[in-house]
């Protein structure tokens, strides 16, 4: 009952052009039926994400480990709450990141879990920068 060949084929990597996304904006693209949030973070958001004491987090992970170096302004995460799979809303919640309306999990500007029942951070999908303004997800 695992995914059939066509489903797997449809899950091939996709390319996303980042140039239309202004600072402070984010877009949602679908890859393998999952929403992927691509956020163009502001300086303030990056600083917020880097200012916290990593050890104090429920799922300790530094912001540096969650973005590609040289492209700190771009946060790419799978927008599926790690609790029970709802889609968190961007730019909401007390940490300026994501807020899940289902059971109240709050994620910060790095997509890390800060509050609520979700056990772990929003996962970062496999992706790389093809050029400065283009990424390939998958």
């Amino acid at each position, binding site marked *: 009952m695992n995914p059939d060949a066509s489903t797997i084929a449809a899950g091939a990597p996709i390319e996303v052009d980042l140039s239309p996304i202004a600072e402070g904006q984010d877009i949602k693209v*679908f890859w*393998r039926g999952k929403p992927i949030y691509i956020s163009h973070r502001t300086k303030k958001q990056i600083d917020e994400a880097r200012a916290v004491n990593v050890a104090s987090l429920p799922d300790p992970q530094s912001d540096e480990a969650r973005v590609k170096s040289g492209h700190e302004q771009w946060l790419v995460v799978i927008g599926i709450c790690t*609790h*029970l799979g*709802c889609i968190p809303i961007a730019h909401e919640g007390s940490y300026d990141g994501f807020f*899940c309306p*289902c059971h109240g999990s709050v994620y910060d500007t790095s997509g890390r879990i800060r509050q609520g*029942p*979700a*056990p772990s951070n929003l996962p970062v999908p496999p992706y790389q920068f093809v050029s400065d303004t283009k990424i390939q997800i998958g």
Partner: protein
Amino acid sequence: MSGPSDYQPSNPALQWIERRLPIFGLIHSSFVAYPTPRNLNYWWTFGAILSFMLGMQILTGVILAMHYTPNADLAFKSVELIVRDVNYGWLLRNMHAVGASMFFVAVYVHMFRGLYYGSYKEPREVLWILGVIIYLLMMATGFMGYVLPWGQMSFWGATVITNLFSAVPYVGESIVTLLWGGYAVGNPTLNRFFSLHYLLPFVIAGVVVLHVWALHVAGQNNPDGVEPKTEKDTVPFTPHATIKDMFGVACFMLLYAWFIFYMPNYLGDADNYIPANPGVTPPHIVPEWYYLPFYAILRSIPDKLAGVVAMFGAIIILCFLPWLDSAKTRSSKYRPLAKQFFWIFVAVCILLGYLGAQPPEGIYVIAGRILTFCYFAYFLIVLPLLARIEKPRPVPNSISDAVLAKTGSRSTPMVSTAIVLALAASLFASSVDTAKAAEGGDKPPGNKWSFAGPFGTFDRGALQRGLKVYKEVCASCHGLSYVAFRNLAEPGGPGYSVAQAAAFASEYKVKDGPNDAGDMFERAGRPADYFPSPFPNEQAARAANGGAAPPDLSLITKARSYKRGFPWFIFDVFTQYQEQGPDYVAAVLQGYEEKVPEGVTIPEGSYYNKYFPGHAIKMPKPISDGQVTYDDGAPATVAQYAKDVTTFLMWTAEPHMEARKRLGFQVFVFLIIFAGLMYFTKKKVWAASH
């Protein structure tokens, strides 16, 4: 089913079969001669009611499956087409959807009955465990059935429930992928759920056979919890139990019919009339009411894995009940303390159910934790402890003694009632306050609708005027894609003739093709065509309207609602109030205000609306006084427009509403007469046994 039968049919043909396959003997010994305790009360009729409901669900389900399409792109529409176009499709669908709820109502009564009278105790442990297995299968079947209409709640319910399995350490993610058949809930998920939803009811039927078999080996328990000793203690199953069960089923059908014909959407969720959208999570995901207590347990545990374990544990623990409660006395009738705790437990379950439907914040979380503790404490602390410290009252020597005495139940149920009431009152008092504070939005004012109530019909004038308003105003942005022009001439609608509907259709241009040259072309509309949508697809609609796609209006009055809150949602069952949708739609149309109140900020490109959740609506004020000219002299005011167009949209959402209410009345007359006849027959049959 207890040993070889000495039954011999009198008909020679039946004798011939009986010698080769003793099926008539089996039926005779199981359902005719079978000795049933003579002191059974009406709580024992729920076994028959459950069999009836299972049969009903399978029957309606098989027919529905003939018309349903299990495909993510077509499922929602196929359900709407069943309701609109299949002969009595609306009835089948209501019977099946409401039937699931009624099945659970009956199973909960049946389970609480078993709990109260100790029906799980030796020698009925296997019987009880089979029952728990049936219950688990029912939950799986009900859940997968709820996914099939592929509305928003179906999709997100499926997402949340399948994600429960991701909590399993190490293999969780693989299990979830296996359930989905893809990387997310999607078409493969829908297909396999449909397959399993069709299969599981027959598995349930199989386990029910085992359940009944075990019942007939161990014999039925009874309210006094003493085994039948002599012939005097029992009566033959037929006619005594048969007729009593028939009366029970008839009464239950009255309740069932109440929901089928008058409140078909009361037990569902308005969000499920919005087609599934993987990109938008509804603000508040709620499972069907029968899962709510377990959902509340899941949410009250802050850890994901522990929450899932607790939720499944809450059901699995029932399997161990025969050994957790080791008290010798079966019936709580003779256990003064167990009886009190039983009622507290019932209250705990109901309150957990209430909490499961509330947002997971503030007082609800704390209350949820306390009640989750109470739930498990009942099984793990209270029952084992009571078995040791409680002094039960003496049980009667035999069933016939108990029937003759008939004074045993003079004890005081006061204490437990008081506890339950106090518990409920305190919790509700606190919850109502927080609910008020949390909501913030204005509740739409109630309206007097011609279609409300058990005899409500659509006001033809309002339907025709509403159609005009839709055509001249709403149609520039909103589609009406489930309504065909031919519907305008159908009974229970705006009352146009077939010729008028055809003329109306011919004013529209409909895209058709490809023709022989392979080109698409436009032609005049025909009655069989559907109202054309103003935008070719959702993205175009979104782009043309500042990012917010105008919703299709075919189902809008059923897809919108607002929270009624306690205690209104209970009163609504009796008053048949179900016009939240129309009230909301009418209110939004009239809720535009120039002056934005203080404390509310409206973003650029949005408008202030008093009744819209969050107040910032993308749709500009759609209609003003005098914009549409009425030919029949009705006032050309926004209030009148709102009323007319809402009435029209109620009809588009449910074109067969008049037929539903009319048939409902006939069914009620029949059922009341039938139940009365059954009652008096039962009295006659039992006259000698009481």
